[in-house]
């Protein structure tokens, strides 16, 4: 159902790092879980609309205005960062060229 190739693809999509042993165990667990959820195939869903939410909802909008409080928070958050430079977070390179 889920091949080693699929597992490696998912690891990449989810930006995870797994040791070979860990990936193997995960593959086993995923297969077991998918086997379990197969149960849903027994239910007739012909003509049923999907529900993304349990309540009736309407779109809620507000003005997109930064508040002064947020600016204060940003300063505080940057202060907590493990590494920073010129008022920005300093992180490892996330894109490779």
């Amino acid at each position: 159902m889920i091949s080693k190739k699929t597992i490696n693809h998912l690891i990449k999509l989810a930006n995870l790092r797994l040791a070979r042993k860990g990936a193997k165990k995960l593959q086993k667990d995923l297969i077991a879980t998918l086997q379990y959820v197969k149960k849903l195939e027994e239910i007739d869903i012909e003509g049923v609309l999907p529900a993304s939410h349990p309540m009736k909802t309407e779109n809620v909008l507000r003005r997109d205005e930064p508040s002064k409080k947020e600016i204060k928070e940003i300063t505080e958050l940057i202060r907590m960062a493990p590494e920073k430079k010129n008022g920005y977070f300093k992180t490892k390179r996330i894109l490779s060229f």
Partner: protein
Amino acid sequence: MNKLNQLTINQSQEGMKKKQFSCQELVEDCLKRIEKIDEKIKAFITVCKKRAIQEAKEKDEIIQREKDLENLFQKYPLFGIPVAVKDSFCTGGIKTTAASRVLENYIPTYDATVVKKLKEAGAIIIGKTNLDAWCHGSSTEASDFFTTHNPWNLNRLPGGSSGGSAAAMAADMVIGAIGSETAGSIRQPASWCGVVGLKPTYGRVSRFGLIAMASSLDCPGPITKTVEDSAIILRVLAGKDEYDSTSLSTPVPNYLEKINGGVEGIKIGLPKEYFFPQVQKEVIEKVREAIKVFEKIGAKIEEISLFDPQYAIAVYTILQRAEVSSNLARYDGIRYGRGREFFGEEAKRRIMLGTFVLSAGYYEAYYLRAQKVRTLICQDFLRAFKKIDVIIAPTSPSIALPLGSSKDNPMFGEIQDVLVEPSTIAGLPGINICCGFSSENLPIGFQIIGPQLSEELLLQVAFAYQNETQWNQRKPKI
């Protein structure tokens, strides 16, 4: 007066009002209790000792100054009440970890709306409680730090994910506690620890500042010693919040007003599919006894038929993993200091399955199908509530299981939560209340489920039962 930590919210406030004891004494008794037994129970990740005592002193000054104390305690319904908050709620200036290594050093700059409302109502945050990391689990064994032990038997699990809050309540370490439920995380630990746990209607309480697990299901709620205490806390927490677009604007009632209304003429449905053979015999027996109590006090009991809860497990597993993989994408090592290599095994497992069911080629077969069955489950409850007022069923298929039970079982949580997952999928409220003890002196709980926004009725029904039985008077020996 000693052992103030054993009091309920109401008793604590009466005592402070009559100046039988101070807020500081109340807070210090709770802290003493924590110091004495939390080494064994391990309910807390963080205890805010200094801060809590300081706040208590400030409350005492207000009490000394205030002439109209009746008015003060009415205006601030949690004035001076020490409360434990699950560590998945952001607390400004207090470390908030979600029991995960990724957020081990995270100190939020703001309060979750739930925390803000507690403080505005006069509550004192005494500490942050343990959970399964990111709320992923039903045992606290998936906490990245340590496992919480059940106060009724230290070799047993407290349930989860709000296991720290439930254990703190059962062991009288605080006066009130806050948990959050995605599917079972309030009701199941409340059941295993023998306390009251109320999961409100989805959207009744704001999710702002609650570290997100599955956003279409997450729901904060109280875990307390009594039904009245849950009513008091829910009134404080409930309401529209401009920071959570899914919060409901329906007016918030005074949940205490009708709590004494009894159950005369109330129609209770017993879904036969919820009393299946895998539910432990003792659990079924005690729930059946509870039903007899309801009959005695005037409720009408009717057997009903609902969607087999086993299907809800499958729906929930797919939807929740999908939402988890999306919500945990933000921990990318840039904004929270620590990267994805810090995720524990359970989080990785969930992210992987969620990524799978949402990925091209599988979306329709899994995610879309699960969403359609979700519609059927919602409709099924609507149909049931045309004939009956509330549903009663066991909360958990078992009493508290031994430590280690969740290990090497990727579906542990789902199987434990089989009886609460259908109602959570439909956004319904539910309350757990203790209905007796097993032969090994472990608590057994049942749940009352109602239509959306029926919290007032649930509290009324639960209160009638509590009054009749008083199981909440029994305390664990630690």
